[in-house]
């Protein structure tokens, strides 16, 4: 021990720049949560003040996508389309965009906030969380419009519609965990940002956004893997609640919840482990 270390110890000073223990870290995060929420809300406001359509773009873009895929798969490849195609597609696009939007935008949560990370001290996990909150704030009005769209295309509100609430909570937990993982990976190497679009593209085709993955794939080994893919499950649960003729099993719910908890816990631990290094790598 150096003589300065002895001096520090005798004055009961504590070491700076070490990673806080997990529980303290989570407590700090909880105390500072208002920062993440306010930052999400304000940056959303700031981003839309300059464009002429403003916040409307958050609705126009998915509506255009529903239009494009509706024409391609509803008219051109009509043999592939599942029953109640328009509601099926609306639920698929809106929820898929939400989940993948979180971890693609959130991947830059640390790297694009470099000056913030380098000048203020707060649990860094607030940044990916803020990215998820910002996506959630954007998707809630969109889900409202989606429900109106469902009614217009002939679906009737039922008790099953309430399934959307726990389902939304589960997919948000999953998305938050995935965002923490992508945010840390991007700090280590920016190349992740180049690869993420491919990951999203693959998930897009494999999660049954616009076709019924259970009926499309006939390879026995792949069937359960694709079925229990978390993104597919969250969409399947929403469809079972919202659209007539679709069902899910209790097992689907259990696996969906297990994914949500597992990825959230894993993502939090993974993100926390590099906490003291985020200032350096951006």
């Amino acid at each position, binding site marked *: 021990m*150096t*003589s*300065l*270390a002895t*001096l*520090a110890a005798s*004055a*009961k*000073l*504590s*070491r*700076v*720049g*070490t990673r806080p223990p997990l529980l303290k870290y989570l407590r700090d995060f909880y105390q*500072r949560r*208002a*920062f993440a929420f*306010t*930052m999400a809300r*304000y*940056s959303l*406001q*700031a981003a839309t*003040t*300059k464009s002429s359509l403003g916040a409307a773009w958050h609705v126009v873009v998915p509506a255009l996508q529903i239009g494009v895929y509706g024409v391609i798969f509803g008219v051109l490849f009509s043999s592939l389309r599942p029953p109640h195609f328009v509601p099926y597609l609306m639920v698929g696009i809106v929820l898929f965009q939400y989940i993948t939007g979180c971890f693609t935008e959130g991947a830059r949560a640390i790297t694009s*906030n470099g*000056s*913030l*990370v*380098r*000048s*203020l*001290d*707060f649990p860094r996990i607030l940044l990916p969380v803020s990215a998820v909150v910002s996506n959630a704030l954007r998707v809630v009005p969109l889900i409202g419009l989606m429900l109106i769209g469902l009614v217009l295309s002939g679906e009737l509100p039922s008790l099953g519609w309430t399934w959307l609430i726990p389902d939304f909570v589960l997919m948000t937990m999953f998305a938050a965990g995935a965002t923490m993982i992508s945010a840390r990976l991007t700090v280590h190497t920016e190349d992740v940002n180049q690869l993420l679009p491919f990951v999203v593209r693959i998930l897009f085709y494999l999660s049954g956004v616009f076709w019924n993955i259970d009926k499309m794939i006939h390879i026995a080994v792949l069937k359960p893997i694709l079925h229990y893919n978390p993104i597919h499950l969250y969409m399947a649960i929403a469809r079972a609640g919202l659209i007539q003729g679709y069902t899910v099993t209790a097992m689907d719910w259990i696996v969906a919840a297990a994914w949500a908890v597992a990825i959230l816990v894993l993502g939090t631990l993974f993100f926390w482990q590099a906490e*003291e*290094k985020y*200032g*350096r790598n951006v």
Partner: protein
Amino acid sequence: MSSNQPLSNDIGAELPEEQRLKPPVFLEPGKTPVVVVDDVHLKYRVFASGKKVTRVNSRVKRKGRLREIHALQGVSMVAYEGDSIGVIGTNGSGKSTLMKAISGILPIDAGAVWASSRPSFLGVGAAMIKQLSGEKNVILGGLAVGMSRSEIKAKFDHIVDFAGIRDFIDLPMETYSSGMVERLKFSIAAAREHDILIIDEALAVGDQDFRRRSEARMRELASGAGCVFLVSHSMKSILDTCNRAIWLDKGIVKMDGPAIDVCRAYAAAQGAPLDD
């Protein structure tokens, strides 16, 4: 300093093992230490792009395309209760890096920093969003420095008046002059009680009146059980607010002691002696 070197105030009592001379750590026995910095090294690793620097720089080492900059090369110091310490040195001497190492924002490569509580960096500017109104930025900045919503609400009027921007509080911050932005930043960060506060070039802007008030607030913050670090190129600011100063040069402490002595030596080395 090496690990077995005795603590001493006698200048030149013992030479450190490195080739470059480091003065012994400035100690004031009897006072309570709040920050102890022990032989801190910090290296930046950056990807080199562009042409190789032809002049040999001792602080830059190349490892393939990864270039290493040894920004802090064994800095030791002790800050005591009630200290307000000016940090001076030329651009790139490691002042801001040392402050970020002390606050724990940048991880250090060797050595250690101890503190009585986590030092807070007055760097609220990075959290602000210029498209939004001053009012929203007070809320966002307040949350960023760790105030609660109710605390911000209670101090809102005080912050706005201290910054002197009441007439413009509902306008987007991008319409503010740079002086107004700096005043707002200081007012937000200084509204909170900090035990250990680090201020990096905040008071250079702002008019005479604001400068006087902000310096008074800094003295107030240092007067309790706390301590304030002020990084500045203005010798006047440092002499007005600080009792002590540290002169950093190329990543090591060149001089540490009473503000007037250190400022005088630094100004003389810069070729612009202080006119008292």
